């Protein structure tokens, strides 16, 4: 039941402990950690080396959007704990970008809601990535695959 947007790194173990401590209703915790990948695959085969990226966001609106996405997940699944921590600013390859954790009495709801949150935050929260490559800076373009992944949760009857 929390969303945070911050420049500093997060401690996954400490975050998860804080999320579940004192809440014995949770039977399963599904966790996603997004990292800065050192290679960017373009056109399906061409790979560019990524030294770092800078995440720009819309302060205020970003937190609102994440809270809306979180609320939607809680409408769809019986969840006892949710946490989204997303970093902004300059991050080098290998650094953590985002943490999504979902606790539920049952694992199916936790897995599904975690996937939903990751898919939706990629397309519905105002973040933009600027990559640093040996050839210079480049804004990351949105992927049709991300839109499709987000849209699969629009199907009627899903959860």
């Amino acid at each position, binding site marked *: 039941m929390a969303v945070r947007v911050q420049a500093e790194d997060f401690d996954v173990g400490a975050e998860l402990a804080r999320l579940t401590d004192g809440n014995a209703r949770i039977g399963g915790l599904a966790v996603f950690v997004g990292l800065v990948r050192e290679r960017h695959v373009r056109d399906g085969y061409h790979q560019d080396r990524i030294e770092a990226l800078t995440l720009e966001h819309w302060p205020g609106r970003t937190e609102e959007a994440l809270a809306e996405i979180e609320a939607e997940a809680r409408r769809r699944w019986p969840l006892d704990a949710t946490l989204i921590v997303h970093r902004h600013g300059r991050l080098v390859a290998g650094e953590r970008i985002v943490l999504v954790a979902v606790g539920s009495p049952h694992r199916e709801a936790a897995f599904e809601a975690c996937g939903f949150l990751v898919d939706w935050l*990629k397309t519905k929260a105002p973040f933009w*990535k600027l990559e640093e490559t040996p050839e210079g800076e480049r804004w990351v373009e*949105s992927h049709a695959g991300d839109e499709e992944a987000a849209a699969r949760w629009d199907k009627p009857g899903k959860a």
Partner: protein
Amino acid sequence: MKIRYFAWLKRRVGVAEEDVTPPPEVRSVGDLVVWLRTRSPAHAEALAEGGAFGAALDRRTATFDTPLGEAREAAFFPPFTGG
């Protein structure tokens, strides 16, 4: 009203935000984009026709058809790429 730009739109326009007073005939988001293009060559390039960018009015998603109404802030941005 206040106009906000993000990511490459901000780089191209050269400012993160600006205060503007569009004329009364500017009634929709689409009208606003067409009018903003006339402010400078940088605006024209950033907001060029066919560009892949979205808009929000008072922080709510808008399309080019959305009436400006009493909105105090418009934002323009590329598709989101977080996560």
